[in-house]
């Protein structure tokens, strides 16, 4: 998503988030639909990057919107709507990852999984190659700690500012910068090693 799209996304159909919230509070349910359509693509990319699982990401985003619906009437507007949405999504993702951590404690989840992604050489289909890179990137993302994933995803895909990410995650701007720096370094290391054996 380009930066210009990001800044314009607050005024799709010339209606601001604040106006949509106001309309929803007055009983206009279509305002909530507009919020879903406006933010779903961005939230879905971030959730997929953080969770590494397409289906689970869909469930989490859906859940985040239902929580939003339940609480939108009491939303006081002290933060922006998208900051609030990301906060809800972040909490859901962290909660889900914690549950999975208990499971992965008993499994052998290692970097082996990443390096064992099959090469595309035997398959001529471009879309398969594309999928393979996608899976490689998702697997590389999984090697990062959850907070680094979240920081990286929000910064990379939604171009959120450091202070916005800090607010969403309840950490300092310094921690956001450090997380992003380490995430980039680790991804570079993993994906370049992958690229040595496969065409990226």
């Amino acid at each position, binding site marked *: *998503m380009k930066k210009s799209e990001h800044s314009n996304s607050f005024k799709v159909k010339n209606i601001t988030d604040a106006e949509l919230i106001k309309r929803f509070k007055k009983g206009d349910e279509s305002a909530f*639909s507009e919020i*879903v*359509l406006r933010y*779903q*693509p961005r939230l*879905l*990319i971030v959730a*997929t*990057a953080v969770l590494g699982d*397409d289906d689970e990401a*869909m469930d989490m*985003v*859906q859940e985040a*919107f*239902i929580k939003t*619906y339940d609480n939108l009437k009491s939303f006081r507007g002290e933060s922006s709507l998208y900051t609030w949405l990301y906060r809800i999504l972040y909490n859901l993702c962290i909660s889900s990852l914690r549950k999975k951590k208990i499971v992965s404690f008993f499994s052998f989840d290692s970097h082996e999984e990443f390096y064992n992604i099959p090469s595309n050489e035997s398959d001529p289909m471009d879309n398969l190659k*594309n*999928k393979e*890179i*996608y899976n*490689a*990137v*998702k697997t590389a*993302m999984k090697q990062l700690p959850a907070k680094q994933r979240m920081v990286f995803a929000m*910064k*990379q*895909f939604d*171009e959120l*500012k*450091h202070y916005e990410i800090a607010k969403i995650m309840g950490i300092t701007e310094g921690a956001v*910068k450090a997380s*992003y*720096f380490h995430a*980039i*370094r680790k*991804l*570079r290391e993993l*994906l*370049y090693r992958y690229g040595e054996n496969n065409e*990226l």
Partner: protein
Amino acid sequence: MERTMNCDRIKEHLPFIDDGSLDSNVEAFVREHLKNCPECRKEHDEIKNIKRIVQSAFTENIPDNAHAMLRNITSRIQSRKNTIEIYRRILPSAAAILITVMLGYFAFIPDRSGDLVPQNTLNAGITDEELFDYIAENHFDSYELYELVDEAEIIDEYDLRDALFHHEYFTVTVDDIIEALDYEEFNDLYVSAYN
């Protein structure tokens, strides 16, 4: 050494140089350095490349399904609203039925208010009947009841049992009998039954 140190500092800024988050002076300094340092330039290119790969991998593979998800969300919310509506409708009827059942229960349950020991007390779950049977069987001949029994013309344990159950026909009362026995156990039972 000085150059290496400088490169290390520069590399810390490389992930941020293209997103506008660096101070303008720092950014200018880093860009100037990149012009003259192939090693840092290579690292900068690699970072840009990684960002590009990750960006395209996700944006090209994540389906555009916002409308489908909206339908799911709307359906879930609607279904929940319907459930709440059903509960809202049946709740008054359910409450009315419950109240009726409770009133009926309290209206028709046996009146045990006169029991010395309620059946549900912890005192061994003993009933009046059991207590009176026990006293009649075990204490008719007792020293404690001797005078009382004689005065009330109670001639045997069956009379004593009757006296306990139907004391209105005898000159002796349950209180008299319990008091005469003066057994702590009976007093406890008696007290708990009436408090």
